[in-house]
């Protein structure tokens, strides 16, 4: 019983310190919750009127407008379910197409149709794909809208698709560049954010679905609808890598990987994003 006071005091100090940091932690969490709640409110208010609907309407018009040297419409375009069959087609892409011998996503396939059916050059078909109001922005938005309510279904069972799935997975984890980033850096843990922006965990189907059911999406920061290719290519740019080529296998392989994981999710695109 020597210097009991000191020991007790020490214990008290420790308890107080623990209590104080607990209070701090709780306060930080409360602040966090409130912030996220307000961001949620912001997003809900935006859902009311999504400008992507404007792109959708223009895509519908473009789809049925005779264009190119062949003066043909896209109404006979085969997006995987047969010529002109649009309902639910987007939700089952990317898939293997025998006529091109390639696994293609929606925009790659649309470019195939624009070049084969309408006779447009590749350059004309893809003109301004990275800018607001491109033909592809409109067409992809329209085509994706035709899968509203459809379930994503990309089993990737054909050998060509299975190959792209494996490539997509390897790419998802592939680290390089001056920041050592891979897709997995930001997208392999639940409940994470970059600043206030949630970054879905693509390793869970819930996370993959939460994202893949929304693209193409109107990005308020861009004032334009971004297609999935546009989104992925920008992620890669943000990783400080050089950009892959538009419609290239690297992008399509990542889409196969993500869509495969998101399978079963119900399409809501076009969505609205930051």
């Amino acid at each position, binding site marked *: 019983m020597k210097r009991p006071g000191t020991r007790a005091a020490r214990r008290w100090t420790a308890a107080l310190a623990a209590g104080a940091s607990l209070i701090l932690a709780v306060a930080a969490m409360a602040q966090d919750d409130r912030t996220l709640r307000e*961001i949620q409110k*912001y997003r809900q208010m935006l859902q009311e009127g999504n400008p992507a609907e404007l792109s959708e309407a223009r895509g519908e018009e473009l789809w049925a407008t005779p264009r190119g040297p062949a003066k043909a419409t896209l109404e006979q375009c085969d997006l995987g379910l047969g010529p002109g069959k649009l309902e639910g087609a987007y939700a089952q892409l990317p898939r293997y197409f025998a006529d091109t011998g390639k696994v293609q996503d929606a925009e790659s396939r649309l470019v195939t149709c624009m070049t084969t059916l309408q006779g447009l050059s590749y350059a004309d078909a893809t003109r301004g794909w990275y800018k607001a109001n491109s033909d592809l922005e409109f067409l992809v938005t329209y085509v994706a809208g035709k899968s509203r309510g459809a379930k994503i279904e990309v089993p990737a069972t054909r050998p060509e698709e299975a190959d792209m799935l494996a490539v997509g997975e390897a790419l998802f984890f592939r680290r390089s560049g001056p920041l050592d980033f891979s897709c997995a850096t930001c997208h392999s843990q639940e409940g994470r954010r970059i*600043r206030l922006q949630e970054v879905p965990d693509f390793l869970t189907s819930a996370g993959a679905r939460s994202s893949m059911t929304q693209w193409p999406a109107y990005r308020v920061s861009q004032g334009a609808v971004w297609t999935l290719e546009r989104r992925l290519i920008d992620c890669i740019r*943000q990783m400080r890598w050089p950009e892959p080529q538009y419609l290239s296998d690297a992008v399509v392989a990542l889409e196969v990987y993500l869509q495969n994981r998101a399978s079963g999710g119900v399409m809501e695109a076009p969505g609205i994003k930051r």
Partner: protein
Amino acid sequence: MQHRRRDFLKLLSLMAAAGLLPAGAARAEEWNKAAFGSKKLDELMKLLGAGAPQQSDLVALIGPEIAENGAVVPLEVESKLLDTESIAILIEKNPNILAGIFTIPSGTLPDIQTRVKMAETCNVYALATAGGKRYFAVKEIKVTLGGCGG
């Protein structure tokens, strides 16, 4: 925020007391170039106001406390004042303060929604005119920095 609110009130009363403004400034037929070009709250009030403005619970400015992107900030303004004639939206720290004026004819409900750009975190004011008098609601909206690109 309290401080700013008082300044705003004081300013509005001063303007009104000085009789600086014609009523019904928000006629749709002609675009009020001077008001939309205004860069200062006091100057804008000269161009817009009439009647002693007061903060009122009968004017509701609904919006998020935090906007993920300043390019698109959704707002709803609902006035419960009888005979609301117009609703204006003012963004204190924008290069031009006035964002829009909505004229509400009789038979139309004083309840409008729109989306505005905000240059930075600041107070947003909803200014309603009813019976020739001005009432306002104010809300601070934070504009946050974005994702990985900064």
